[in-house]
């Protein structure tokens, strides 16, 4: 069953741009340009794209904050804007840069308030809170006013707040933005645990691809409002040239970077004593053999493809993709 459906979803904004001293020109910006997506129950979907690609706008349309300009969306079988309050009971939303918590009250109080806002039976609420407390280590700052929490602590609070009513779908807009490594690990570990249970659908936008690698089997890349990739991370690699790298450490620098068929030099480091080759059609053995005739090798290492590199290439050249 599809928990989320988007058909030709589109969102245009009219912005006024200064043109001359007094004149303002209206310009239409298409933030989301005909997105078709289906997300099944229990899926964990990574939704990524460069700044301004339309990620947050899509999420706002799915959560009932913004009305689509064209096309339609269904979440849990409901229309997000007309059925907003009914949908709100069935989804959880975490916006990384804005808060659902009460700034001046202890974290504990926000949770108690949300129980009333979402009309959650006391028993269910207590059970879910207990689970989040142990998985997210909330106990040490449960009585601290939210304004005094660190960003990492606050984000753990936000996650709890979004889950206390047992939502079927959890939307996360940049949940790890600005977090230190330890907090990122805690948040990812928690979301992975949530995904493993299999009954919560998770849609995650992020700039940190480690989030995706850790959590999402399915990756949707959006650029200029259009989906440019929808599939597994492995599919992304093979489609856009998953390139393993060979790093060769040499005793002495070569006069010029060597030309090896099927393995162009990507980078020259350490004053020419370290060369990085991208494996296009050549094998590791061919690169080693080719190099051995030219220089004395001290060390060889192989670097697996990096999703960031793949995505960076994708962002740069989206036009060729249908």
């Amino acid at each position: 069953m599809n928990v989320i459906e988007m058909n030709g979803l589109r969102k245009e904004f009219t912005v006024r741009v200064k043109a001359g001293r007094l004149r303002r020109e209206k310009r239409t910006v298409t933030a989301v340009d005909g997105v078709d997506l289906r997300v099944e129950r229990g899926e964990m979907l990574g939704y990524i794209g460069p700044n301004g690609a339309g990620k947050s706008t899509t999420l706002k349309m799915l959560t009932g904050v913004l009305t689509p300009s064209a096309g339609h969306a269904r979440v849990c079988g409901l229309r997000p804007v007309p059925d907003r309050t009914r949908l709100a009971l069935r989804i959880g939303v975490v916006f990384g840069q804005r808060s659902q918590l009460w700034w001046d009250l202890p974290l504990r109080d926000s949770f108690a308030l949300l129980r009333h806002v979402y009309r959650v039976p006391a028993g269910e609420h207590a059970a879910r809170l207990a689970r989040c407390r142990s998985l997210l280590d909330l106990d040490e700052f449960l009585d601290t006013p939210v304004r005094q929490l660190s960003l990492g602590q606050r984000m753990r609070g936000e996650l709890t707040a979004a889950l206390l009513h047992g939502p079927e779908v959890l939307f996360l807009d940049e949940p790890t933005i600005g977090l230190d490594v330890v907090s990122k690990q805690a948040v990812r570990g928690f979301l992975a645990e949530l995904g493993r249970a299999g009954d919560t659908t998770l849609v995650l936008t992020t700039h940190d691809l480690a989030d995706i690698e850790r959590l999402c089997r399915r990756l949707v890349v959006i650029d200029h409002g259009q989906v440019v990739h929808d599939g597994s991370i492995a599919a992304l690699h093979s489609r856009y040239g998953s390139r393993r790298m060979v790093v060769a450490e040499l005793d002495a620098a070569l006069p010029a970077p060597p030309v090896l068929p099927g393995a162009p030099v990507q980078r020259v480091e350490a004053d020419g004593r370290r060369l990085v080759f991208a494996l296009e059609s050549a094998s590791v053995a061919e690169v080693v053999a080719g190099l051995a005739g030219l220089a004395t090798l001290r060390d060889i290492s192989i670097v697996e493809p990096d999703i960031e590199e793949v995505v960076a290439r994708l962002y740069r050249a989206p036009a060729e993709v249908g």
Partner: protein
Amino acid sequence: MAEPGTLTGSWRAYRALLGAQARSQAAYRTSFVVDLVGNMGATVFDVVTVLVLFGVTRELGGFTLRETLVVVGLSSFAFATADLLVGNIERLPRYVRTGLFDAVLVRPLAALPQLLLMDLPLRKVSRAVFGLAVLVFALVSAGIGWTPGRVALAVVAPLAAVVFFAALFVTTATVSFYWVDSGELANSVTYGGRDFTSYPVTVYGGWFRAIFAYGLGFAFVSYHPALALLGRADPLGLPAWVGWASPGVALVAAAVAALAWRVGIRHYRSTGS
């Protein structure tokens, strides 16, 4: 959108939001007390202005001091109470900018009551209480010939005036959905309305009176109810029943505000700005 059976749940939710706001403000106890006292100043000033005026004249637009105080009392109480309950909606542009507005839209409650309750300025309570004191004093000392009808009007008219001002706050705030820097315009209508209703409309003249008193309906906030309470005929010649029309005018204003809010929110959702 309201479903049967969820009304009590919503009520409990709103009450919880109000409680949270009270506890949030109690977190800053000293500044709360200072604000409580300071906030009274504005309303005291309204009354002092009128007293000063009567220091130089015996009548104002054909009304004595005691009669005028009924007008002032109605206006002060109604404005201060509406300002307490919904005045903070003028901070709508800030709610939009900080994302509070989006946060409110992903919760299973109506947006407007949430915004009002989450930012209810309890420190303004002192003004409303002072306004009520002025109103009660004015009603007691004006020598009103009390009848059951007038007693009812003395209760209903202030409430209608509160609704009227509240509607005014909401309506003017929705302008900021279209035009973010509209705060000054909104203030000129709301605070201008308070000043306008502090005096008998007979002191104003011509088109100005026509527009504000009857075009926008400010005459029904304090002037006409005061006439009916005092048992005075309208010097401008309107029939006596007009004094009893304020609840109807308030309902119309509330309907306009509700419509403006709905249209404004729809505009926000379609532009996202």
